[in-house]
């Protein structure tokens, strides 16, 4: 069934991609987020306040930047795979629709 294939392929592809995140994140500098949540629960509002640094700035450790680029690369590759799959299905369905329309018009005339 193409529908089931489509759903499960999407799930599998994105799951594989995102499952790379925790392993990639092992080398990233991070705070204790559990404490962060607890602080947020007690009224500190700035949990999503950005840091002053960004990926392009030099303060970021080189290995962390490499990991970030690697994870992004994996996500991009998975997206390309999914996009190609969807595009091919779209093209095939369009072709089938045209054939069916042609046959119906042929039968009518």
């Amino acid at each position, binding site marked *: 069934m193409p529908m089931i294939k489509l759903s499960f392929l999407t799930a599998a592809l994105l799951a594989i991609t995102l499952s790379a995140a925790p392993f990639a994140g092992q080398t990233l500098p991070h705070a204790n987020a559990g404490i962060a949540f607890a602080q947020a629960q007690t009224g500190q509002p*700035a949990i999503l306040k950005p840091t002053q640094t960004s990926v392009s700035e030099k303060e970021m450790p080189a290995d962390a930047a490499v990991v970030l680029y690697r994870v992004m690369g994996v996500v991009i590759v998975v997206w390309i795979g999914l996009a190609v799959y969807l595009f091919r299905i779209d093209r095939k369905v369009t072709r089938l629709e045209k054939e069916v329309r042609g046959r119906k018009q042929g039968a009518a005339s």
Partner: protein
Amino acid sequence: MTKLNMKFISLILKSVYVLMPATIVMAFLWVPPAELLGDYSRIIYFHVPLAWVSMLAFVVSGVLSIMHLLDKKRRFLMLDGKSYNSAAVGLAFTVLTVITGSIWAKLSWGSFWNWDPRETSILFVLLIYIAYFSLQAALAGNSSRGRIGSVYLIVAMTTLPFFMFLAPRVMQSLHPDTIININRTIYMDDRMWLTLVTSLVSFTILYGYMLNLLDRLMLVEKKIEDIRHADD
């Protein structure tokens, strides 16, 4: 629907091919990391839109089911099949929501699964919709399959507000409520906000595109079957 409208809708749906890579680049490179969560916070640009789309898909399937039951004259084609497709896409997105949530839980709380009220409630939603597909498979060939499935999807939709909004708020949860919190304020940087909105739009269009493909495929299958029957 006119040809121009259809072309316009098709153009919007195909914009996902541009929007999704843009979202990925924005989420990883453009947006700054959050102050306390660091780079882990980037998962929010995937987890939140996935959760949104899964809820949207289930609501759409419920609404289509209502339309199917009310549409006695069958003015709309195969509404039960369309609601089935929407639920299928919703189920895939819910699985991804659970997976991304578990990854985030591992990073934040130290464990993939904590039986937090939010995690437990989404598990219930997942089980409810898995049961729907079991029911549909069991009723294959039954003439009442569409109607029974529609009733099930409507009942399933009515449980969503309880599981998604009420239960995690009634019971204490570690799950952050940071997007719109108790002060009804959005504490997000402009770039974070823009990235989240772009991601929400991209995933919503992706859902629309997948649903459109599945619906078209289903209608073509039906037409081919009709032609075969006519030939016989």
